[in-house]
């Protein structure tokens, strides 16, 4: 088992140039604005003095390469600069928001699986049957509804109408977090699960027709024991990469959803700092999200390798 995971250190090494590329992109974000970034930050009515002061503060009067090296050097020390609006280190702001967003994403993933696995199983046992049609209608509906709208509808129905869940916020204790995050996670799960169901349903249909399922039936397996013993793991293999790719999109979705549910996560931080032109914070959040996607890519390969013993990413021939 472990020897098949020997590709991980190499993959981590490969992600170093990727990370460099990300820092480069993030760094030049501030320089993509037309004209002087400091002027753009301060707006049309800024006095020349304040523009000069901000230019000095941001180091914009230095040569570009020197600015980048300084940015990298600070990054190496864990310093992402100082937020312009909050007047506190960006690192602290980002680190404070990360747990909220990660919990939300993990929760959403768990809920998506809890929705997708039973529905896919239901649909795949008789493709083209009534249940299958129902599940397919759900996936179409789930894909067709905009996330923010689903979020608002859930708030209206379950929070305002039935008062079973809070309208927004994050809560204080771990239990409260799970309670407060249920609706936003469900919103994300409703958006995510159609993609998972589509993949899982079709691979389950293929697996159910395979010879080894016939073998399992000839050993007397049926129903749940057949599903857990010989179908789910095999069908999950292609779905894992689908989930891996879509987690990146899910981060994008969570930015909006955090706003809808007033969650103090990376999304809210990002949107607030975009509106207030708080560039160091935007840089910090972007950097983290980009690195998160890189890590998810590696994790996908790890899970893939664990699920499928035939996969050996360590070998050059199969890489």
């Amino acid at each position, binding site marked *: 088992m472990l020897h098949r995971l020997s590709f991980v250190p190499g993959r981590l090494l490969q992600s170093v140039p990727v990370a460099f590329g990300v820092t480069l992109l993030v760094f030049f974000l501030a320089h993509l604005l037309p004209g002087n970034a400091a002027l753009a930050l301060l707006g049309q009515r800024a006095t020349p003095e304040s523009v000069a002061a901000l230019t000095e503060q941001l180091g914009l009067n230095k040569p570009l390469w020197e600015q980048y090296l300084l940015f990298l050097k600070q990054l190496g020390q864990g310093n992402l600069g100082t937020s312009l609006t909050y007047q506190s280190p960006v690192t602290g702001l980002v680190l404070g928001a990360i747990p909220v967003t990660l919990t939300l994403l993990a929760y959403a993933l768990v809920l998506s699986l809890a929705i997708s696995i039973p529905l896919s199983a239901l649909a795949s046992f008789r493709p083209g049957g009534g249940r299958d049609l129902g599940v397919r209608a759900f996936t179409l509906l789930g894909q067709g509804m905009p996330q923010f709208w689903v979020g608002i509808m859930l708030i209206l129905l379950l929070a305002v109408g039935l008062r079973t869940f809070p309208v927004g916020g994050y809560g204080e204790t771990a239990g409260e977090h799970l309670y407060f995050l249920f609706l936003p996670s469900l919103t994300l799960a409703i958006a995510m699960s159609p993609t998972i169901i589509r993949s899982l349903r079709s691979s389950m249909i293929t697996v159910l*027709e*395979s*010879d*080894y399922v*016939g*073998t*399992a*039936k*000839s*050993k*007397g*397996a*049926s129903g749940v*024991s057949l599903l857990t*013993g*010989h179908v789910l*793991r*095999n069908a999950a*293999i292609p779905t894992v990469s689908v989930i891996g790719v879509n987690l990146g999109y899910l981060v994008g979705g969570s930015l909006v959803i955090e706003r809808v549910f007033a969650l103090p996560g990376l999304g809210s931080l990002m949107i607030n700092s975009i509106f207030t032109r708080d560039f160091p914070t935007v840089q910090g959040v972007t950097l983290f999200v980009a690195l998160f996607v890189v890590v998810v890519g590696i994790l996908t390969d790890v899970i893939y390798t664990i*699920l*499928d*013993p*035939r996969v050996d990413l360590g070998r050059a021939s199969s890489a």
Partner: protein
Amino acid sequence: MRTSSAAGTAASTALSLLRVTDLRIGIRRRRGDDTVIVDDVSFDIAAGQRFGVVGESGSGKSLTLRAVADLLPKGVEVLSGSILYDGRELVGMPGAERRRLMGPEIAMIFQEPMTALNPVVRVGDQIAEGPRRHLGLSKRTAHSLAVEMMAKTGIPDPERRSRAYAHELSGGLRQRIMIAMAVSCSPRLLLCDEPTTALDVTVQHQVLRVLEDLCADTGTALAFVTHDLAVVNQTCTSMAVMYSGRIAESGSVVEVLSNPRHPYTRGLLDSAPDFDQPERQLIPIAGFPPSVTGRPVGCAFAPRCPFAVERCRTAVPPREEITPGHDTACFESERIFAGVPA
């Protein structure tokens, strides 16, 4: 009696373990006639008997076997007829009851062990699955039983191999795993669907020996489907020859192979190489077997049969006993094989 009795008189008096009567398998149509793939197939297998079914691709031999195991492909079903296992009717038996039989009573070995083994489950666990379900063994006891079964099928270093996955083993070892899996619950009837076709000849021989020995040990009856006459000759005691969904001829292996009474069986023997007579000219059977939807009205073999007369093209010949335990479905059998000692 139209059902073929098994080899010799002993088997015909003994209560049969599996009795298939007038089995028709096909695709049911909502409108119009059903598509019949296997038609009017009847045979008996006594406890401990080794029964071979020979035929070319598309003759319906595998479907017949799969109908017994309840593993017919989607859309294909038993249209009519009866499959009696140990006195119990399998056709129409509730799924749960039928699956309780699968493993401890009836087991199956498939043609291609690479696809018939689950690629992501260790082979030892796949063998242990049946005994855990049917014999109620603990995980540990089932595992040691699996290792023991693997040793019995002649797999070297079974403890280590039990932790392997299918793709890490050779074709011969994989088929031994399949055999170990099938016999792990000591079934009374073992269905083999061309178990040696995917193997090369030397490995094929070894695997057949393992299969025979294990079945002899436990008194398991074999239903063996193959296109290879030599394999039937080596493994089975009685046999049926299938052509285009029907049984053409059946009887004891010695009787059928040395004294064929159906022109198709004759043709099969003439077209197969015989290492005892390497000089003999091989005579191919002219033409191709009919497609399922394009079967002729009369005897399905008539268009290819050099002896066919008018009657063969208009009516389906019934199976008739020529000598006790040996029957053939050919109108002209007596004329064709006249002079050949029965």
